[in-house]
């Protein structure tokens, strides 16, 4: 089968998109280290088996990340003891570079307060660059449900930021 992306420099592609892909991995994992592991495994799996496929590679890489994250969660049962010690650093480690603008910093903090099902739609839409149709495919939900979760998330973020601004 001909390689649809034969001229693609995949290292350069990863350098350009690695940060947002890592964020996608991060919101489906319990720790920074897990996010790195998932990202590495997912990208290598994509590179070995799917890089020659036609179309936009972005959605394939996101699918691969989700699959790796689910695999890791499944394996997670076997390392429960370590998880208890390490704990979930969801609330203590920043997902973003520090922001000087307090409104942006508040927004970054507020993202973690969203319910997981809304947060993953936001992350996939903003940083995954996916449409609601594609998000629906990823999460096995209808595009309307994805759009609905997006609207609820936007509303919640607006409330969080407003509350923080008034504090």
């Amino acid at each position, binding site marked *: 089968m001909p390689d649809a992306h034969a001229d693609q420099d995949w290292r350069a592609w990863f350098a350009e998109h690695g940060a947002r892909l890592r964020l996608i991995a991060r919101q489906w994992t319990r720790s920074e280290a897990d996010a790195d592991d998932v990202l590495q495994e997912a990208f290598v799996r994509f590179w070995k088996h799917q890089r020659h496929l036609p179309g936009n590679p972005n959605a394939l890489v996101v*699918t691969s990340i989700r699959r790796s994250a689910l695999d890791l*969660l*499944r394996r997670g049962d076997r390392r*429960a003891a370590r998880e*208890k010690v390490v704990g979930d650093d969801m609330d203590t480690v920043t997902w*973003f570079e520090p*922001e000087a603008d307090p409104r*942006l910093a508040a*927004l970054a903090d507020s993202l973690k307060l969203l319910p997981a099902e809304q947060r993953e739609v936001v992350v996939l839409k903003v940083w995954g660059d996916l449409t609601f149709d594609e998000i629906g495919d990823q999460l096995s939900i209808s595009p309307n449900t994805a759009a609905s979760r997006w609207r609820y998330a936007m509303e919640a973020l607006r409330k969080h930021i407003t509350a923080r601004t008034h504090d």
Partner: protein
Amino acid sequence: MTDPDHDIAEALASLRPRPPGTAVTARLARELDASANRRGVIIAWSAGLSALAAAFGAAFVFLGGAVEPEAPAYQLVRVEQSRPDVQFFRPVQMEDGSFARPVRVRWQDTTRWEDARSNTRLINYRPNDQLTLLPLETN
């Protein structure tokens, strides 16, 4: 019509996710290099074996041996992964008191080879079925 969420979405997009660490980038580079090298070795071996087979074939024909019908030479033409079928089950409580939702994910990998000369196909269907637990956050 204006999108009321546009300002929030625009602000979100201006946040800068932390890039992967240098350790990840280095590990990835090593992995890609190793895979490329392994592929190079396989191609080199394949080329060498092909040349050897051609030499034996030519000698056989030259010596007047009967030519057997050649076995199909399958070429990989397509690898597909079906859309995953995800089933969510009722949440369960874990030993540490946290809650998790069992999720069953099923999909199928299909690999297809073809031999243009004999116009034959070889298709491998591999069903996958995984059961996993998604941690639920509680406030």
